[in-house]
């Protein structure tokens, strides 16, 4: 278990909590994109560069754009 892996785990947990607790949907989508990037670095560290490539493109590229389009067609804030 290297120091880099531990740092990445901390980063992932903080980012995921920030994604979930943020009130502004657009900000939380940008944070989700960053979460995907960190996850890709993590997978590369675990010996799966193919999955890291797919994760960068799909999770933080395409899915984030789909989320942004959907947010503009629904509502932007996350309150009851």
């Amino acid at each position: 278990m290297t120091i880099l892996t531990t740092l990445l785990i901390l980063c992932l947990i903080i980012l995921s909590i920030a994604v979930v607790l943020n009130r502004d949907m657009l900000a939380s989508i940008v944070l989700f994109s960053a979460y995907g990037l960190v996850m890709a670095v993590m997978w590369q560290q675990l010996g799966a560069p193919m999955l890291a490539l797919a994760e960068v493109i799909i999770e933080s590229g395409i899915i984030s754009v789909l989320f942004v389009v959907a947010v503009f067609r629904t509502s932007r804030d996350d309150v009851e």
Partner: protein
Amino acid sequence: MLNSASSNLIYIASIILFLVGFYAVAARPNLIKKIIGINIMETSVFLFLIGIGTKKNGAVPIIVEGVKNYINPLPQAVVLMALVVGVGTTALSLILAVRLSESEKEERQ
């Protein structure tokens, strides 16, 4: 027990991420936020699967002359398929959410 916890840190991290995603699905009001929560749960499960597949000092599963010790490629293949299916299901659930909010808007008018 503590020794196993320190070597299995990635499993514990994936459990925490799964619970965070589950909280988003269960307790946040916005539909899109719930779908983001499902995505976080998905990636945490993928992290768990890749963690199962790793091997100490193992090389990336691409055959090179002179290397004998490779990582198990099966979990990676399964996760790769699940990633692409995840795009399809996420897009479909987003389309359902958009349709729902539009019909709500029509009812209000």
